[in-house]
């Protein structure tokens, strides 16, 4: 089947099998490997990207389900060579070690701050509670 969706502001169309997961569509079909692939079971959150403006675990979304929708990946945080404040903050505050969980963490952080510009520590902890980081715990 053919799917067409907007990815990082650009319309893309590809021929796919219905069973192709969105994480593999983004990474392998489109070559956007910033979205990572971890547990494959919707637990770790390293595959988090935005679908129609809200974060989703892309290992548990079919690419077919994203047909006609708006997808945003971590590659889109940087605009015109300028890092998003979330990326800048992760860099400056040592918010990563190996970087494996980082794309998903940043996409969720960006969403949190868009909706809650001054979150409490509890707000932050709860928001990332569905994502795992092996390095920082």
């Amino acid at each position: 089947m053919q799917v067409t969706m907007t990815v990082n502001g650009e319309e893309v169309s590809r021929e796919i099998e219905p069973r192709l997961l969105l994480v593999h569509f983004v990474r392998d079909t489109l070559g956007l490997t910033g979205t990572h692939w971890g547990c494959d079971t919707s637990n770790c959150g390293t595959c988090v990207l935005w679908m129609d403006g809200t974060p989703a675990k892309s290992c548990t979304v079919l690419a077919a389900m994203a047909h006609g929708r708006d997808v945003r990946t971590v590659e889109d945080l940087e605009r015109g060579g300028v890092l998003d404040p979330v990326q800048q903050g992760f860099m400056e505050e040592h918010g990563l070690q190996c970087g494996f969980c980082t794309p998903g963490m940043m996409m969720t952080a960006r969403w949190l701050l868009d909706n809650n510009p001054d979150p409490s520590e509890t707000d932050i902890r709860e928001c990332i509670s569905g994502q795992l980081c092996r390095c920082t715990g």
Partner: protein
Amino acid sequence: MQVPASFDYERATSVDQAIALLERHGPEARLVAGGHSLLPMMKLRLAKPEVLIDINDLQDLSYVRVEGGELRIGAMTRHADLLASAVAGEHYPIFHDAERVIADPIVRNRGTIGGSLCQADPSEDLSAAFAAVKASVLIRGTGGERVVPVAELHTGPYETVVAPAEILIEVRIPIRPGGGSAYEKVERRVGDWAVAAAGAAVWLGGDGTITDVGIGLTAVGARHFLATEAEDSLRGRAATEESFSAAAALAAEHCNPTSDQRGPADYKRHLAGELTHRALRRAVARAGPAQASGDNAGQEA
């Protein structure tokens, strides 16, 4: 790598069209909403539908509203939406308690109320919460619509009375004055199924006695997700620690937990009792001041 077996994909444009697609494709077709129960099963090949019918465009099934004296929750309401719903929290804080401990914030963006109920996992939190508040579900098929009490929805693990060519439309909960509700869950980590969980809804009369009560249990093999004997012990009794204790003991006695990776059966049974007690205590505290006259008409819950 977990790869589902091959299937055909269709996207429904309306509820009626979804039903027509289910009719056309037969019992090997499945609806997919949030997909966070079905897709993991398909990736493990525990489910191998031949056709997936995507109902994520059915926005008219996404709502939380008061209508006809009931709180009505559309089947496509995402868990995140129910958690954020002020009207749901105002009438039944049990739903906010439960949603806070269902999955995690990202999964809650996708998972739906209807999907969770129809998945019918024996540890589903909303099954217990809806049983406690005596909810019913509206189901639609080619033959028309029918209303089924949540207590009669489940026929076994992962099995409901929703037929192959039917779709769950909404959940309905009667709004009754003088009530309070709460949910208590123990889980090993965020996003996990419950080791055990209990939900309670209590209605008080003017003199502080319990006029009606609902106690839902999940993950402990409670029949219809209810602690019926515990409920029966409370009606007409004063809302005291003693009566909560007695009810909790009955809830623990009459459930059927099994030992597994989440814990031994005796621990789960202990939790069923303890969490029932805590849920009752919080539900009663939320029921608010008793009315002087004992006449329940006209007071907001």
